């Protein structure tokens, strides 16, 4: 009963999965568990050389076989080096699985074809069992093709833009879900089985509920906060249980009994709007307690039954409404009034929400958390447990994706902290994929009515947007409000509503509100162009005053993809079309951003309580400091994802690079000045020769400086709000041009090529910036064509709770993407550039919609553009 794992013989257990055995018994945590059902490929290992999903493989099947995990590839397989060099990853959680499968493919390819690059289709086919939620497929295609061509067999390659890339490609990077080992207890969450009910009693079964009682390894149970004692959706956390092993914890959780007094539930938004429908929040107090999914504080709004709103943003709103009403009465052909809907999009980062909590002897709390806001976890945890902020230590060394859902004190953190207190042991809580897809956060579905009116000369005369957010029990939709930022100063009325139902709450997701507005508005603009018998680009160039986008429109006009697009009615089964869409986003910043530089062992260590969720901020900090200091990259070590240092920004609001980068530059300048004081030979600017650098740093051992972000010229647009969030001056812009091929027989849309132009000022790391933009195209394609959370209409139970039924785009579903940066327009910002993580995500689905219309003459109104909808539309 033996197996050979990475060249070592070891025994094989009779039960459990191969993945569990490799990770927990052998400590080979490079093999990741993300879906547990053989869909995502993160757990792929080679069994006798063949890529195998180890999460499905019974451990006993390893008997007599030879297993190679990502660790067994040694870190210097050509594919691993190619992945680092081509930046074929973001968060890195899926990377080991991709690397293992790609290594097998590359070796086989070269044996069969020699050292020639494999094509996109062949690579997509070989890697079709893998999903990257960040969407780093462009880099993956490039890396695998280059490795096939033999470009990474020998030779030195320059340091990769992402300094942790080699660790991620080798499976050495340890994420929160990898840290518990055998010593931490496993915590599981007990969730509501009722859509709407008062919780009468939570009976712990045989679990103990107080610290220091009972046997040391008896399971423990804690209640989780249920505000006002009412659960409002199936899957709402009610309690949590921990035990020394996962199996024991699940058994103990099964014995927890929750007594409910059921209340009438309301599942659909139509039903919720009906007079006399059961109310989720019958009192003012209950309404105030409704969770909100906005990133900034949600402004107050009136309620009527289950409907909240409108929240109104207007510019000469009465004029806009008058003009639109008159145009409607007169049946004005230049009035475009349409309704568009979007489906709930689930964040579903491949590393699930996870926390590992330990209470120290001195009463302080140590938390390892998969979070995008280290600092906010400190603040909120301190408030929750009545500690001073200095008594909470939060670490997030590597974070397997976030997209907005991993902010603050999420359920996993509360549960782990509470359970660890009662258990007197370290406790880890890691959500299952099912929990992640049910209650891990989502971009709420929307229903948006948009009306545009143009005059005979084609000028925009009025705009109205009424949008309804379908965020389950939560509120905070801001779709219509974003209409204030686009298409000049024409009169407009923008109203946002929320309709609450007994379904899980939303969470902020990459450019909250942006993609649904663009989906509606950008298609309405194309419709208007059609009515005006005008090219959609020409119309936008007239309506859109944003100087960055105007520069991008000039590029689009010369783009072969746009210029040479097919014209006229298309026929045949497969029809090609090209569409474009504009994106706008606010420039946000973190005014408090700081970076500490310390000279340690003759090198520079950069520290800050920020975190890298795949954005590449680790690389930006390192390269910025190195460049300003005149030192090679290798002399700067970046240690982030730890709260025990200076303040760093949370990874939301596209703020990391534009906030942390200038703070790092400032810190490097200070360090340089200090080094010059001690060591006058140190030059004031430019590269420093290694000898001088070494002497200066040796002499300055222990020196520490802190750099802070300089303020923008002309200051900020808003003061700093909670969360170290402020809005700066100037809007970022993007334009996407998308080509699709529509199979009119089977109703499938295949995006083939995409051009993404970004106006975000100066870009600090071109390759990593491109990666973000490419990833946003992937997520936008998912939003446009595949992703849709489904629920049972009677109970609200989420049915799409695995990655087969919740469909993320795979490598074969995404367009070949080219990215262009227009690097002007933010000279008032230190570093001359702003963030791009959100603006690049806004208009992707809208561009797909316009391309589908261009190809077929049918305009999609509902997302996702499923085969059934397309076939119905083409009938």
């Amino acid at each position, binding site marked *: 009963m033996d197996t050979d794992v990475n060249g070592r013989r070891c025994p094989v257990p009779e039960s459990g999965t191969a993945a569990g055995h490799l990770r927990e018994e052998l400590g080979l945590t490079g093999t990741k568990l993300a879906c547990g059902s*053989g869909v995502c490929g993160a757990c792929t290992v080679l069994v006798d050389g063949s890529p195998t999903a180890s999460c499905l493989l*019974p451990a006993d099947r390893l008997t007599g076989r030879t297993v190679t995990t990502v660790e067994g590839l040694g870190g210097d397989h050509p594919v691993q080096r190619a992945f680092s060099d081509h930046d074929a990853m973001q968060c890195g959680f899926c990377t080991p699985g991709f690397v293992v499968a790609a290594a097998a493919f590359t070796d086989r390819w070269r044996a069969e074809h020699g050292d020639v690059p494999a094509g996109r289709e062949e690579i997509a086919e070989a890697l079709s069992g893998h999903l990257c939620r960040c969407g780093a497929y462009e880099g993956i295609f490039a890396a695998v093709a280059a490795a096939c061509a033999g470009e990474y067999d020998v030779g030195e390659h320059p340091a990769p833009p992402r300094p942790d890339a080699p660790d991620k490609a080798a499976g050495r990077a340890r994420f929160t879900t990898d840290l518990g080992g055998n010593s931490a207890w496993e915590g599981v969450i007990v969730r509501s089985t009722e859509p709407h009910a008062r919780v009468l009693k939570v009976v712990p079964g045989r679990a103990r509920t107080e610290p220091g009682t009972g046997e040391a390894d008896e399971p423990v149970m804690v209640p989780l906060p249920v505000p006002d004692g009412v659960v409002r959706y199936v899957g709402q956390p009610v309690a949590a249980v921990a035990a020394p092993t996962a199996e024991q914890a699940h058994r103990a959780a099964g014995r927890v009994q929750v007594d409910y007094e059921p209340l009438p539930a309301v599942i659909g938004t139509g039903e919720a709007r009906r007079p006399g429908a059961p109310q989720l929040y019958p009192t003012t107090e209950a309404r105030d307690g409704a969770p909100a999914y906005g990133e900034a504080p949600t402004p107050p709004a009136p309620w009527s039954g289950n409907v909240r709103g409108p929240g109104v943003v207007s510019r000469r709103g009465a004029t806009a409404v008058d003009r639109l009403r008159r145009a409607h009465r007169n049946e004005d052909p230049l009035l475009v009034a349409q309704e568009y809907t979007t489906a709930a999009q689930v964040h579903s980062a491949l590393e699930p929400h996870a926390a590992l909590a330990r209470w120290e002897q001195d009463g302080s709390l140590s938390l390892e958390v998969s979070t995008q806001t280290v600092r906010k976890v400190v603040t909120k945890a301190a408030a929750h447990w009545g500690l001073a902020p200095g008594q909470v230590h939060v670490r997030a060394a590597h974070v397997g994706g976030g997209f907005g859902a991993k902010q603050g004190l999420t359920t996993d953190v509360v549960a782990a902290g509470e359970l660890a207190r009662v258990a007197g042991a370290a406790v880890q809580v890691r959500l299952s994929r099912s929990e992640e897809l049910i209650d891990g956060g989502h971009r709420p579905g929307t229903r948006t009515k948009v009306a545009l009116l143009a005059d005979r000369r084609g000028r925009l005369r009025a705009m109205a947007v009424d949008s309804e957010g379908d965020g389950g029990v939560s509120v905070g939709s801001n779709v219509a409000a974003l209409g204030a930022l686009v298409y000049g100063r024409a009169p407009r009325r923008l109203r946002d509503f929320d309709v609450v139902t007994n379904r899980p709450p939303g969470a902020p997701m990459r450019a909250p509100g942006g993609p649904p507005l663009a989906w509606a508005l950008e298609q309405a603009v194309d419709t208007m162009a059609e009515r005006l018998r005008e090219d959609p680009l020409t119309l936008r160039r007239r309506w859109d005053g944003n100087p960055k986008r105007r520069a991008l429109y000039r590029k689009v006009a010369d783009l072969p993809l746009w210029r040479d697009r097919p014209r006229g009615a298309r026929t045949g089964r497969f029809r090609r079309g090209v569409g474009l869409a504009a994106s706008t986003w606010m420039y946000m910043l973190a005014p408090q951003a700081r970076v500490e530089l310390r000279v340690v062992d003759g090198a520079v260590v950069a520290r800050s309580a920020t975190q890298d969720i795949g954005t590449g901020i680790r690389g930006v900090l390192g390269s910025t400091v190195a460049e300003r200091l005149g030192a090679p990259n290798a002399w700067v070590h970046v240690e982030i994802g730890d709260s025990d240092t200076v303040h760093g920004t949370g990874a939301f609001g596209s703020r990391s690079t534009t906030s942390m980068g200038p703070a790092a530059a400032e810190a490097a300048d200070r360090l340089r000045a200090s080094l010059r004081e001690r060591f006058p030979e140190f030059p004031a600017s430019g590269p420093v020769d290694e000898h001088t650098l070494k002497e200066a740093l040796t002499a300055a051992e222990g020196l520490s400086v802190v750099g802070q972000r300089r303020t923008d010229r002309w200051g900020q647009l808003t003061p700093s709000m909670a969360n170290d969030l402020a809005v700066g001056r100037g809007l970022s812009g993007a334009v996407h041009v998308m080509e699709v091929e529509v199979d009119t*027989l089977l109703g*499938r849309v295949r995006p083939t090529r995409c051009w993404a132009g970004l106006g975000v000022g100066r870009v600090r790391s071109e390759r990593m910036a491109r990666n973000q933009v490419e990833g946003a195209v992937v997520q936008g394609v998912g939003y446009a064509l595949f992703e849709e959370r489904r629920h049972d209409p009677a*109970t609200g*139970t989420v049915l799409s709770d695995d990655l087969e039924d919740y469909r993320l785009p*795979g490598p074969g579903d995404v367009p070949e993407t080219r990215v262009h940066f227009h690097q002007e327009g933010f000279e008032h910002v230190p570093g001359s550039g702003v963030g791009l993580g959100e603006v690049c995500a806004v208009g992707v689905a809208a561009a797909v919609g316009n391309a589908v219309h261009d190809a077929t003459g049918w305009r999609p109104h509902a997302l996702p553009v499923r*085969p059934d909808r397309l076939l119905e539309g083409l009938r």
Partner: protein
Amino acid sequence: MILRPADVDEALAHLGTGALARAGHTGAAPPEPPVGADVVDLTGVEGLRGVQPGPEGSVRVGAATTVAELAADAGLARSHPALVRTAGALATPEVRASATLGGNLLQRNRCAYLRNPAFSCLQDGGHGCPARGGDHSRGVVMDAGGCVEPHPSSLAVALLAQGAQVELACPEGRRRVEAHELFSSGSGAGDHVLGPSELVVAVHLPAKFEDERVGHLRASSRSRAEWPLVEAVARLDVPAGTVERARVAVGAVAREPLRLPQVEEALIGTRAERGAGEGVERAVAQVRQGGTPLPLTGYKVALLGAAVRGVIEEALADPGR
């Protein structure tokens, strides 16, 4: 305890004591066997593996042959291309490497209600079907009452098109049945008609057509790695450019894979270079008219018609091998 029988008789003896059969173990999140239950691992059983040529162009494929082996078998690609293409298009390379022919035929259906322990239905010993009044948007279009989840096996569709027979073994002996006899459109529980102590041992494929042309088509939203909304397989015998024999099968539309005899008949006499004629169109329209869709599966009736037309066009245009 994991039992590793050496041959079929030993495997059957274990199954007779109530042990649970295990093959590729790739069903999405397969249930852990109850604690203490015996598991019979079938992957090492002699006679269950491999592709063996038989008399007169027929082929025997062992039930524990993996889908990847099927898809990569060069001889089978020449003799039975419809099966090979179907095998190569299902699931993902990782799943195909573990999944077996027998497991694919006998797999459990994919209903989200069945997977969710909060719901009970006639598939798990309860009554009724929560999907019928709930979300059944990927459900059947040939409603026979009862469960509304389509049969999940792609290979079953291909086997119907291949005219395959399935060799079964039970303690009383062995027998062969036509592939469609493994399945039932009835309203009962389960996704096949095998008893707990019966095994699929092998599949027997009759010889290819003289001038065989094939088509295979999966309708889905993503390009790969997705359960089909409709799947269609066509095999035509086209000596001298005229269809003389035809087998057309479809999946994901009913509780069992289906052959379409009226379409097959209509295809006889079709000139390949002229494409499907009016008779075939009429037969496809009949298939559509025979659909009894659920409230949310009306679109699948149209998709079924489109897929059948598409797969016939593909087969007629197939250069053959």
